[in-house]
């Protein structure tokens, strides 16, 4: 059953990324997601990027559904169900947060809950960096592939430098799968625990259709946030995903 929420505010965050604010009484944890239905158009999963009463989805324009969502105005409605899945587990100690592109949407409410943290905000280019303003006071370390702002290069290289220099108790990451997959390897190498929020094509969102499964784990119910032990065992991470038909396909 869907709830209907009204869009209260729309914020341009970066190139092709907008945040839609709405009120809803659910109490999600950072890392959980909702299924968002645009009647007559599509339904797709969205992480929660603001978890207070004035909640938010931070949406990157990708295809038909997200493009349509970008055309919505304040006062328009969204149909949502959720929150679903397991969010991040917050552990005591020092955390390294590595967010790539719109992966920052998922990490943002976590960052606000963490006490002791270093933050990497990464993107291909300056105009794709998400939530720079939101976290300005936290002095995030910026990385861009093209060097248009901050560190030039991959977030993973920057993260490895930090891991070599500091003692972290947990790495939290969300971003493109190749980035997350590399981060898992790096965390393993440095013997640090890691939590990553994965993405897979989702149909049901409630753990019955198997379309989001990776190595037998359902991203929608067993994830989307997975911890080290399971991440280390996932042979499909960064390599294989399933098409909407359920057919395996190589990740390129």
């Amino acid at each position: 059953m869907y709830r209907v929420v009204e869009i209260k505010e729309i914020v341009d965050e970066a190139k092709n990324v907008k945040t839609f604010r709405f009120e809803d009484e659910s109490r999600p944890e950072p890392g959980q997601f909702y299924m968002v239905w645009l009647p007559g158009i599509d339904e797709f999963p969205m992480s929660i990027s603001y978890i207070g009463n004035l909640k938010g989805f931070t949406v990157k324009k990708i295809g038909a559904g997200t493009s349509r969502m970008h055309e919505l105005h304040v006062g328009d409605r969204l149909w949502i169900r959720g929150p679903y899945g397991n969010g991040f587990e917050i552990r005591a100690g020092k955390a390294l947060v590595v967010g790539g592109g719109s992966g920052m949407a998922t990490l943002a409410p976590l960052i606000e809950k963490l006490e002791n943290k270093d933050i990497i905000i990464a993107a291909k280019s300056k105009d794709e960096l998400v939530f720079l303003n939101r976290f300005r006071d936290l002095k995030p370390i910026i990385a861009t592939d093209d060097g248009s702002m901050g560190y030039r290069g991959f977030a993973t290289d920057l993260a490895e430098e930090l891991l070599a220099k500091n003692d972290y108790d947990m790495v939290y990451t969300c971003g493109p799968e190749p980035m997350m997959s590399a981060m898992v390897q790096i965390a393993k190498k440095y013997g640090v625990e890691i939590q990553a929020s994965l993405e897979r094509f989702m149909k049901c969102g409630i753990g019955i259709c198997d379309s989001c499964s990776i190595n037998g784990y359902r991203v929608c119910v067993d994830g989307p946030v997975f911890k080290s032990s399971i991440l280390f065992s996932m042979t499909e991470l960064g390599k294989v995903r399933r098409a909407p038909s359920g057919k395996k396909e190589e990740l390129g």
Partner: protein
Amino acid sequence: MLSVSLNGMFFKNPLILASGVLDESGDTMVRIARAGAGGIVTKSIGSEERVGYPNPVICELPDGMGIINAVGLANPGIDSYGDEIKIAKKGGVPVIGSIFGSSPEEFVFLAKKMEGYGVDAVELNLSCPHARGYGMEVGTDKGLVEEIVSEVKKAVRVPVWAKLTPNTHSLIEIAKSASAADALVLINTVRGMAIDIDARLPVLSNRLGGLSGPCIKPIGVRAVYEVSSELDTPVVGVGGITSGRDAIEYIMAGAKAVEVGTAVYLRGISVFSQIAREMEEWMLKNDVGSIDELVGVAQRR
């Protein structure tokens, strides 16, 4: 206490994962087997890859009543499915390959493929839309059902299960036409629909869908009772089974084993071991040594 032999297959308990629920990928099926299922039916596989219907494909009903789904028989296609079966078999429980088609030839083709992949049995999903009848399913055409079952029986050596639709007024007659099967599986989902009044549209992109979960349990129990009172072919019950009491209810109605689908959503994948424990508890309290003793007892008067 819970083990069951059916068509020469051994099930450590009578709780089999129903087709279409968490049984597309081999890895997931292994996980379900390890979580306690006595057997696994795969998602229904067709001869071609199908993406199914666009989202939304499911609609959750309130109060844990169940769901309506219109996944649209999404499946990777039989040709790429051998690998999944190979992995699924590692779960150590019988793996039953579900197949769907619209002609006897297609069913025979798919059944042979499945047998080649090493399944322990095949389950014929007879609920595809019927090419000729408006809104009808293949499974309501008695002649077609009979032909599909007998052709598949001739073509493979593994047991053949025929899964019937409840959306008919001729259930007994259809069951009779399918009685050459090694077991009849009752019931598939019930045709239903939900409209979101704020959207003024049906929720499912396909508009119509199949109802499953606790709300259809009385329909499934009735179907199992009616068919197993009339026929000798073993019956496998399915529809809304969520607890040990539900499973026993189906068995008392006449089912030799049961399948569990939507309950995985309601109680998680540990539902199989939970149901098994609940059954054992009831059996201990009621001095029942073997689940076999309960098959069909509610039919006596």
